[in-house]
């Protein structure tokens, strides 16, 4: 009620009832203005224009009946209090409405002006309370996230400083140190690493909560990442006398995932496995494709450790959970690792779970989606249920001037990829999530549903944009080329899906060649019709 002035929207189709309610409203003490409509559609239209202080709603209208009526009103104007005017016989429905967010109801025969006024005033007050609760809940979350990221950042600088001075001392750069001093310094270093890991996890968990955790999926080989993770953890395993083994399927197709994140998940699982496995035990990392779900690759880390009880199993992926049976002698983290790992896997569209018995080891498994170019290409090369007429693959190669690229080269490449994504047409072109490195140069590929002639214009545009925005010109040069993807006949009577698959296979083949050919794509088989190849 603004300044004691109440604007009421009355949605009621029976003219007699409407007049009666209007009369009761006017009889009351407070200043009220009433707009009356007799159909739900008109009511919703009025709500869309401006929100009244309160809605008085009849449930049975010419264009809507029963529960549907109030649901539509609540949906249209979630912040506006609604009071239902119910008949004698549908009080049960009115009660149900209250459970679903309506503020109050009045039975039509019993309405007096004081009843009506009080019901309206209460409805408005309650609605305001609910709203302020919602706002404070939102602010609470927001504040906590800001708070955590602020604190984490504040902690980083002094920590880096400690790290540097400890390493200087340990490396003997400030003079010799005796074994005892070395031992103390190593302990300090270990604590620094722990703190760092905690702060990193904290920031990640904050990102998860505020929905800011991002992944950058690409076309990657899972085998490589598994091997990398295992080699990174080999020393830790050796120190604990735990055998660390790898089991890989002979051929795992490409996976569509963020390599750094997959590595992070694997490291987390392997680290946990080693931590909870006694000396002489073993940890095995496996990756394979299972017949049950051919669209996913399956990865698992199995240990011969102490196992997890059923209660802990139910909680283990929760934030800040630590198995109380294990923390006493192995407490080094915040209990955020598995929480973050699971979130990361789910962001990829996979899932994560654990199988374990007390005393019988544990197996943590997760899945990642296989790379499907078909899915990505489908919207690009089809139009009104038919294949488009032309498709071109554009190869963008960034070559650094010297054989040892400058330290910001990686940044330039990332920036270029971002620029590239922005300067192609959203619905017609696609920057393939495939990128590769040949020697020191980096290659990106764009599939464009256009013909070679127009590809030339596109190449020109890409070059201009990259040179203008990424600073590549100062440190290297660009080589751009395009080639046509042979398409099946558009009139072919095969199902569209099959045609798209054939095109996807073709593009994959060409992409592999494009990534393999060394700055002279015309010499590679199947990669022809180079339109332009120039150096800056």
């Amino acid at each position, binding site marked *: 009620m603004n300044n004691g002035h109440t604007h009421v929207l009355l949605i009621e189709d029976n003219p007699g009832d409407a007049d009666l309610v209007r009369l009761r409203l006017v009889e009351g003490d407070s200043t009220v203005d009433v707009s009356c409509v007799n159909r739900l559609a008109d009511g919703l239209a009025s709500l869309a224009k401006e929100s009244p202080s309160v809605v008085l709603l009849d449930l049975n209208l010419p264009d809507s009946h029963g529960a549907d009526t109030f649901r539509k009103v609540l949906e249209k104007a979630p912040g506006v209090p609604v009071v239902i005017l119910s008949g004698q016989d549908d009080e049960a429905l009115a009660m149900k409405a209250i459970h679903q967010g309506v503020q109050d109801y009045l039975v039509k025969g019993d309405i007096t002006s004081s009843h009506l006024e009080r019901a309206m005033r209460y409805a408005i007050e309650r609605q305001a309370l609910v709203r302020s609760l919602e706002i404070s809940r939102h602010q609470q979350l927001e504040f*906590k996230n800001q708070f955590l990221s602020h604190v984490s950042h504040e902690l980083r600088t*002094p920590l880096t400083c400690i790290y540097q*001075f400890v390493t200087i001392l340990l490396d003997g750069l400030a003079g010799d140190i005796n074994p005892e001093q070395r031992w103390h310094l190593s302990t300090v270093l270990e604590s620094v690493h722990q703190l760092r890991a905690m702060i990193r996890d904290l920031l990640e968990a904050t990102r998860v909560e505020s929905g800011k955790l991002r992944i950058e999926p690409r076309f990657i080989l899972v085998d490589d990442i598994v091997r990398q993770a295992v080699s990174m953890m080999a020393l830790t395993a050796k120190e604990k006398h735990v055998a660390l083994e790898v089991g890989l399927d002979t051929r795992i197709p490409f996976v569509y995932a963020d390599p750094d994140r997959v590595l992070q998940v694997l490291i987390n699982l392997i680290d946990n496995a080693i931590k909870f496995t006694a000396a002489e035990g073993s940890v095995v990392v496996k990756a394979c494709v299972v017949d049950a779900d051919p669209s996913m690759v399956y990865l698992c880390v199995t240990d011969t450790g102490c196992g997890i009880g059923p209660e802990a199993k139910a909680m283990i992926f929760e934030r800040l959970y630590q198995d109380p049976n294990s923390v006493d002698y192995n407490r080094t983290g915040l209990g955020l690792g598995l929480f973050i790992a699971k979130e990361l896997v789910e962001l990829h569209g996979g899932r994560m779970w654990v199988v374990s018995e007390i005393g019988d080891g544990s197996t943590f498994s997760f899945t990642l989606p296989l790379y499907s170019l078909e899915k990505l290409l489908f919207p690009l090369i089809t139009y009104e249920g038919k294949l488009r007429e032309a498709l071109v693959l554009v190869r963008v190669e960034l070559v650094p001037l010297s054989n040892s690229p400058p330290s910001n080269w990686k940044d330039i490449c990332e920036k270029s990829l971002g620029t590239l994504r922005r300067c192609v047409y959203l619905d017609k072109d696609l920057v393939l999530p495939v990128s590769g490195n040949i020697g020191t140069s980096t290659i990106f590929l764009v599939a464009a549903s256009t013909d070679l002639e127009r590809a030339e214009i596109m190449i020109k545009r890409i070059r201009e944009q990259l040179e203008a925005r990424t600073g590549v010109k100062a440190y290297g040069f660009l080589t751009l080329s395009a080639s046509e993807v042979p398409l099946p006949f558009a009139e072919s009577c095969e199902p569209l899906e099959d045609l798209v698959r054939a095109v996807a296979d073709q593009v994959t083949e060409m992409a592999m060649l494009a990534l393999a050919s060394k700055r002279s794509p015309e010499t590679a088989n199947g990669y022809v019709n180079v339109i332009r190849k120039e150096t800056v």
Partner: protein
Amino acid sequence: MTKTARPTSELPAYLSHELRNALACIHQFGRILVDGLAGELSGEQREYVGIMLDNAARIRNVLDSALDGAGGPLEECTNKIERGSELET
């Protein structure tokens, strides 16, 4: 077995505890070194360990003011949060 998954509102206090453990370790061993309990340090080494300890103290200050609140805006906000969660229940 007690459940140790914590609700959101407890997060800062719990974290503070974990972070402090690691920090205490840095502080303790730093003191041992600077006090010469593990053998004499040269002037330069002593200076470096001193810088280490200063930074450890800085971290502790951040934690003190941010998490346990000796007044200030952060504590007010934390209080607001606590009141918010009471309302919620």
